[in-house]
């Protein structure tokens, strides 16, 4: 994975994301999920490390709420009715169809989520920026993206410092009532906003002082990553998968069942 061109890595994530949106069969989505996990493991992304495990479990559990939408708020008739009742005008109907539909969208979210792990763990900030520049995305855009990443880490740090500073003045975040917590957050916000404006001035001055224009016509690019044959092969393969997925979704056929029919 690390030896792939940045644009190939980005393409894997984005094209597969579109494929996820196109697949509507639960078995297709399960197979896709397995494929994504295998790709991630092959790319040596520590998907099941402690750091990601907690987040994955959190998402797996919280996304189950989709079942609440489909089972409790959207009565869908099916072959098997597991539960049905009326509460006033509220019709609750849990059928095999509602569970199937909920599962479809649950798997959609889980697939996307694993792709995002792939994205954040497998593609560094640098990869993203160099990848975008290699496809001639304007320099100004890539610089903004770079600064957004810098901003993310800078403000995480600032947030911890400010929060600590408030604790040293007697603020108890955990034990405070909701109105008090809101008040405390307002204080943190105001400090972060003021710090943000100060940092903006300094960073902007630093950029301007190097004579970097907003729109560079004659700007060269230092980094050069040639796109190799294997990158082309992967990208072409992904596009074939994408077009095939579009075709299948138009004729309303499942990838897995088509495969089983053929073999």
């Amino acid at each position: 994975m690390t030896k792939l061109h940045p644009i190939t890595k980005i393409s894997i994530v984005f094209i597969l994301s579109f494929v996820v949106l196109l697949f509507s069969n639960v078995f297709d989505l399960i197979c896709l999920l397995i494929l994504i996990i295998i790709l991630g493991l092959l790319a040596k992304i520590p998907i099941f490390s402690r750091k990601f495990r907690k987040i994955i479990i959190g998402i797996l559990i919280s996304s189950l709420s989709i079942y609440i939408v489909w089972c409790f708020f959207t009565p869908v008739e099916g072959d098997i009715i597991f539960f049905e009742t009326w509460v006033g005008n509220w019709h609750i109907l849990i059928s095999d169809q509602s569970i199937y539909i909920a599962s479809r969208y649950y798997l959609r979210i889980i697939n996307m989520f694993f792709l995002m792990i792939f994205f954040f763990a497998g593609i560094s900030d640098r990869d993203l920026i160099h990848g975008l520049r290699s496809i001639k995305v304007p320099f100004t855009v890539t610089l903004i993206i770079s600064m957004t990443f810098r901003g993310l880490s800078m403000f995480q740090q600032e947030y911890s410092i400010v929060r600590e500073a408030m604790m040293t003045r007697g603020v108890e975040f955990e034990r405070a009532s909701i109105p008090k917590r809101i008040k405390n957050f307002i204080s943190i916000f105001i400090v972060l906003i003021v710090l943000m404006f100060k940092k903006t001035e300094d960073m902007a001055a630093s950029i301007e002082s190097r004579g970097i224009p907003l729109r560079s016509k004659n700007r060269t690019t230092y980094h050069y990553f040639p796109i190799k044959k294997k990158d082309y092969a992967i990208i072409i393969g992904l596009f074939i998968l994408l077009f095939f997925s579009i075709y299948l979704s138009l004729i309303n056929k499942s990838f897995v069942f088509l495969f089983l029919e053929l073999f």
Partner: protein
Amino acid sequence: MNNSSSGMEEVRIGVTWRHLVVTALATGVSAILAIYAVILAPVAPFPGVSGLYLAAAVYVPLSLWLGMWGCFAGYFSCVILGFVSGFGPWSFVWAMADFIEGFVPLLAFRIFKADVDIGANLKRKKEMYILLAILVINLIVSAIATAIGGLEVLWLITLIVAVVLIIFMYIINPSRSWLLYVIFGIFGAAITSALWGIWGINVFIGEPSAEAYWIGVIGWFAGDLIVLSAIATPMMVSLTGKIKETSIFVDKWFS
């Protein structure tokens, strides 16, 4: 100081790197707050929705201070949230909810040519905040009545109460800026973003029933009302005057 008489000329500047940098940094700040908000107060069963969407308290005021740059910060921070929540490329569509949330108050202030400094000459601050709190509670009740249906009387009452409260606020503090902010910066921003945002999620999770849609809208709307009134408003009151004096302040759309 009468600058022109002492021979000094005013310097005005257009779009600079400052505006782009602040968009980038604000996107970072808003994205962190957005992710934190969704973890802190999720609105089940909607992924990516928070009952206390803290990020709105950043990019809505930023839209009033920085024009379109603030709207962009809201948009891109929501794109990041969308990706983290599992929406993938659909995030680019869904995130329009946060763009709209910043754009609606900005548009209102520009159309009516009003001063965004809602804190300037603000009279009886404490009373105004109390009235605002009552108005927010009233609007949430109104939203619930709208969603549930069959409660037209309650809906009508809450509507009348809302109008009376707004008129009362204007009597105590006859400020066009405050009025516009309450109507468009709190209510208008929250409702428009809720309508788009839940529509976006519903499309992503298969367009379930209308009931589910309206429950989502209430959750989003109420959450944003609370954040915009309780957090964004004091920030606007405290900081706008200071920010107006800086080179970064935008009084048109981009500069």
